[in-house]
């Protein structure tokens, strides 16, 4: 660490209750230029990345925070209890839909998932991962939901743009799907089914 400014910023991030944004650092240190502060931040990140210590500086939910490296979690949990339990598949699906499609209504989430999502939504609201954005200007004025700052914070995302893009996911999936296509072999079964087992007949 060379400059004093870096040290000052480090002390601010270190004592901040939650992630502290670049804007906020600039506001607090108004005797320094924004550019100076930005390059000092880059310097600190590089410094902690360079030394394989127990923690590092990361940018999450639009702010800076020192966080332990994931590799050491098994040692840390000997000391402190983990607070976040595993998320259920339905919670993650609902979160993903809200994250990618926000602002979104409950009915839209339910249409996509094909199931009632009231309970899941409530628990996501209670965990502050999802928030109510307001009401949609359509008949019935349903509530619209979006993800919160805590969502980014907990999942270690800088902003919503840092979410894996859906296209990436799609391309990951394309290959196995293509392979599957060639192995199709359902003709005999299909005929049989249509002739004898139609529920509608």
């Amino acid at each position, binding site marked *: 660490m060379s400059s004093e400014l870096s040290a000052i910023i480090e002390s601010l991030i270190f*004592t901040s209750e*939650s992630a502290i944004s670049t804007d906020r650092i600039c506001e607090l240190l108004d005797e320094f230029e924004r550019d100076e502060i930005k390059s000092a931040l880059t310097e600190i990140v590089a410094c902690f990345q360079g030394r394989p210590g127990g923690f590092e500086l990361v940018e*999450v939910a639009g702010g800076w*925070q020192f*966080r*332990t490296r*994931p590799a050491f*979690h098994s040692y840390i949990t000997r000391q*402190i209890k*983990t*607070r*976040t*339990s*595993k*998320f259920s*598949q*339905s919670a*993650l*699906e*609902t*979160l*993903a*839909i809200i*994250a*990618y499609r926000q602002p979104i209504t409950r009915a839209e989430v339910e*249409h*996509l*998932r*094909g*199931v*009632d999502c009231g309970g899941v939504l409530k628990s996501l609201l*209670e965990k502050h991962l999802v*928030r*109510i954005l307001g009401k949609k200007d359509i008949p019935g004025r349903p509530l619209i939901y979006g993800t*919160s700052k805590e969502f980014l*914070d*907990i*999942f*270690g*995302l800088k902003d919503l743009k840092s*979410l*894996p893009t*859906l296209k990436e*996911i*799609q391309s*990951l999936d394309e290959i196995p*799907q293509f392979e*599957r*296509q060639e*192995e*199709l*072999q*359902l003709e005999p*079964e*299909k005929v049989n*089914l*249509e002739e004898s087992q*139609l*529920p*509608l007949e």
Partner: protein
Amino acid sequence: MTAEALNREELPLLDGMHEQYSVHLDKFDGPMDLLLHLIKKNELDICDISIAVITRQYLDFIKLMKDLNLEVAGDFLVMAATLLQIKSRQLLPLDDQEEPETEESDPRNELVRRLQEYQLYKEAGMLIGARALLGREVFARTASEPVLTAVQNLEGPLEVSLFELVDAFRVLLLRIPAESFHDVAPGDSLSIADCINEILSLLQEKDTVQFEDLVKDEFTRERVIVTFLAILELCRLKLIRIFQGYEHGSIWFVPAVSSDLAEV
């Protein structure tokens, strides 16, 4: 009841898949999830699914759930209806005027689109869930230096969510008995004067009255407050005297003019 024995005969189609279903029964996160599973299991292309195969197996699954005495959620039945509707549309001979099946008129399209989208979000959810989570794999500093918390301020920006606001109101309403809530208008409130008269008439019958006796028939916050105010007023007017046996004990009061207790 062992459902397996029953089903072997009734559902020859499910033979062999049985154990797999039994294990995964509660793992399906709704009808879309089940459909995706069936498509994968049959090695179908999501864009060109055989509605007949899928519908058949989907219905068998629901039947199995019934046989296992599991309640079939309405969401699953809605999907069953959708599948049957698509299937029936495929089977019906086309009207002469109608164009032959094109991409757009394929009744499967809507379902395929939904399935594809659902699959995207399902996978996105898994990716998000696989991240190192704060409080699970990654930890921030938890130390709260007393010096830091000692300086409290009220000037900084506020941090609160809308849900917290509504929930605070909801919890508040749960705490308040319903009847007192509907009594907000001051005109409808129990008046202190009425309460004073009530206490005075009670004291004509008994020499001592306990605070609890006055509110036990109608234990609402409003009643307690009004009664308490009435007592204070009576005390101020020197019409009663108040006693308390010990700290936080019951409050007793006697008429101030009562002859035998006047000297207490």
